[in-house]
C-alpha cells in the first residue's frame, strides 16, 4: 500500500465528517449553500440575482432529470447533454426568426414557429431519440453504460457541429424567440425567470410523483439488483427505457428554455465537458434525492458565477479555474462524502 493510500484512509477514518449524524451533515450543507446563495445575491443586487436564478432553474431541470437515471435507477450516464442539445436545437431551428440576416451565411430553412409550437416538438424529438438510443443502451450496465453514454455525447456534438444544413454548424443560430402567450411576450428577464421556475416546479413535481410511486420503487430495485427484480415478473428493460425517455424529455425542455433565454446557441454549449459537469452536479448534490439535485445545481451556479468576482483571479483564467475548483471539490467529496451533500445512495 502506498503512503498516499495510507494517508487517505487515515484521513477518511478520522475525517471531520466521521461521527456526525447524517441528518446533521445534510442540514449543515443545506444551510451553508442557502446562506451562500442569499449572501451572494444580496451582494450582487437584483439584476444579477435574476440571471443567476434563471441559470439555476435550467441547470436544476437538467440535474433533477439526470438524477432519475443516475441516482434512482443506477445508470451512470455522462451523455445527457445530447438531449439538452436536441431540445435547444429543435427550438432554434423551428422558432428562430427567418428574416434575420444571419441567413446570409450558411442559411437554413426556419419555419419561424412560435415558442409554444416548437417546445413540444423539441421535447418529443428528445424523447424519440432517447427511445432509439435506449433500445441499444438497455443491453449495457455499469462501466459499459458510462462508455456508451460518453459516445452518445460525442456523436450528438458532432451532429450539432457538422449537420450545417440544419444547425448552421459553428456559426450557431441567432434570434431564438422568447415564449409568448398571445400578444404577451416574456421578453423581460423577470417574466422569463418566472416561466423557467414554473417549468422547474413542473419537472420536480413529475419526478416526485415518479420516485414516490410503485414505478419509483421498481427503479430503486433495478438500481440495487436488476436480476433479482426480474425474477418477480418485472420487465426491467421496459422500466429502464421508460425512465430514460422521460429524463431525456425533461432535458429537452431545459434545452428549449436555454435556447430561448440566450437567444443564440452554437455547438460549444453542448460539449462533453458540460455533460461531465452536469453529472458532477448530480453527484455533488446527492444521488437519489430531488432536493440534492436542486442543491447541487445551486452550489454549482454559485461557484461558477461567484468566481467571476475573485479579485486575485484574472478574467481570462476564470473559466479554467472554475473547472479546476469543481474537479477538486468532487475529489474531496468522493473522499469524505461519496453520497454527495444530501444523497441517499453512492456509486
Amino acid at each position, binding site marked *: 500500500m502506498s503512503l498516499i493510500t495510507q494517508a487517505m484512509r487515515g484521513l477518511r477514518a478520522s475525517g471531520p465528517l466521521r461521527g456526525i449524524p447524517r441528518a446533521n451533515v445534510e442540514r449543515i450543507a443545506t444551510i451553508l449553500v442557502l446562506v451562500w446563495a442569499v449572501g451572494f445575491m444580496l451582494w450582487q443586487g437584483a439584476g444579477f440575482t435574476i440571471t443567476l436564478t434563471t441559470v439555476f432553474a435550467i441547470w436544476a431541470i437538467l440535474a433533477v432529470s439526470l438524477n432519475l437515471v443516475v441516482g434512482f435507477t443506477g445508470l451512470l450516464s455522462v451523455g445527457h447533454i445530447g438531449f439538452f442539445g436536441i431540445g435547444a436545437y429543435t427550438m432554434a431551428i423551428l422558432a428562430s426568426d427567418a428574416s434575420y440576416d444571419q441567413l446570409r451565411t450558411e442559411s437554413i430553412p426556419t419555419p419561424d414557429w412560435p415558442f409554444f409550437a416548437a417546445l413540444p416538438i423539441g421535447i418529443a424529438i428528445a424523447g424519440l431519440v432517447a427511445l432509439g438510443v435506449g433500445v441499444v443502451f438497455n443491453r449495457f450496465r455499469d462501466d459499459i453504460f458510462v462508455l456508451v453514454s460518453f459516445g452518445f455525447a460525442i456523436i450528438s456534438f458532432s451532429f450539432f457541429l457538422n449537420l450545417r444544413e440544419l444547425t448552421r454548424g459553428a456559426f450557431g443560430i441567432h434570434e431564438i424567440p422568447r415564449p409568448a402567450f398571445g400578444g404577451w411576450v416574456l421578453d423581460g428577464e423577470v417574466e422569463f425567470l418566472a416561466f423557467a421556475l414554473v417549468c422547474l416546479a413542473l419537472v420536480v413535481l413529475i419526478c416526485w410523483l415518479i420516485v414516490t410511486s410503485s414505478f419509483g*420503487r421498481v427503479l430503486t430495485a433495478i438500481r440495487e439488483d436488476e436480476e433479482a427484480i426480474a*425474477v418477480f*415478473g418485472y420487465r426491467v428493460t421496459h422500466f429502464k427505457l421508460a425512465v430514460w425517455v422521460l429524463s431525456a424529455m425533461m432535458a429537452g425542455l431545459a434545452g428549449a428554455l436555454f435556447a430561448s433565454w440566450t437567444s443564440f446557441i452554437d455547438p460549444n454549449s453542448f460539449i462533453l465537458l458540460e455533460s461531465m459537469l452536469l453529472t458532477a452536479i448530480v453527484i455533488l448534490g446527492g444521488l437519489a434525492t430531488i432536493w440534492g439535485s436542486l442543491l447541487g445545481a445551486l452550489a454549482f451556479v454559485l461557484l461558477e458565477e461567484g468566481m467571476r468576482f475573485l479579485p486575485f483571479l484574472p478574467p481570462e483564467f476564470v473559466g479554467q479555474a472554475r473547472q479546476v475548483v469543481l474537479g477538486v471539490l468532487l475529489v474531496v467529496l468522493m473522499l469524505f462524502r461519496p453520497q454527495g451533500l444530501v444523497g441517499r445512495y453512492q456509486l
Partner: protein
Amino acid sequence: MDASNEVSLELRDIAVHYGAVRALDGVSLGVREGEAVAVMGPNGAGKSTVLKAIMGLAPVVAGEVHWRGGRLEAETHEIVREGICFVPQGRRVFTHLSIEENLEMGCLYLADDEEKRRRLESVIELFPILHEKRGDMASQMSGGQQQMLAIGRGLMGAPDLLLLDEPTLGLAPIVVGEVFEKVREISDRLDTTVMIVEHNIKGVLEIVDRAYVLDKGRVVHEGTPESIRETNVLTDVFLGRAQPDRDDGEIDEP
C-alpha cells in the same frame, strides 16, 4: 405434505450450455402437485441451473419444460404470472427499501389493493418477525431475517410452485433449522409445491418428499429421503465416483 399423483412440473431432457460448458445435459425430472422436492449435488452439478431453466433465466439449448400440462416457453415475467416464483440464491433483498416495500415488490404488478393486503397479512402471519420490523430498512436485518424476507417476498406472488435456491446458504446453524421449518410450513399449510436446491443434505432430507441427485449436469439418482439415505449415492457424487468424467463438463467448440 399432501402430494397428489398428478405431475405438475416436468423437465424433459433439458440441456443448458454456457458457452462451451454443459451445465445441464439431458436432465429429466418431475414434481407432483403439492410435493416438496429437493435437488442436491456437489458444486457445479447444475442444481441452480435447473431452477433458472424453469424460470427462463438460463440458455436452454434442448428439451422442454412443462407446467400443468402445457409447454412453458414464456419469458420470465410471464412465467411468474403462471404461478411460479423463484427465490434466488444469496437472499438479494433490496437494502434501500423497507421490509414492507420489499414484500410488496413480490406482487407490485397486482392492481387489486385488497388482494395485496391479504397476501401481505398471510406472509406476515407466517413470518411474524417481518411484521415487527416492517418499517425498517432491509439493510438493518440479520442474514436469517433477510432470508425470511426473501422467502416472504417470493410468497407475495401467491405461487403454486415455489423455487428456492440455497435458502440456508451462509446462515448460522440455529437459523438454518428455522428456515427449513418455514419451508416445511409453506409446503404443508399453504399447500404450495416446493422445489428446493440445497447443499445442507441432512436438513433438507428432513423436510422433502423426494429428492433428485445431480452430478455433472445429469440426474444420477431419484427417490425418497429414505432411499437416498440407504444408498451411497451422495457419498459417490461428492467424492466424484458417481459417473465417469465428461472432460469436466466441457464440450467441443462448434
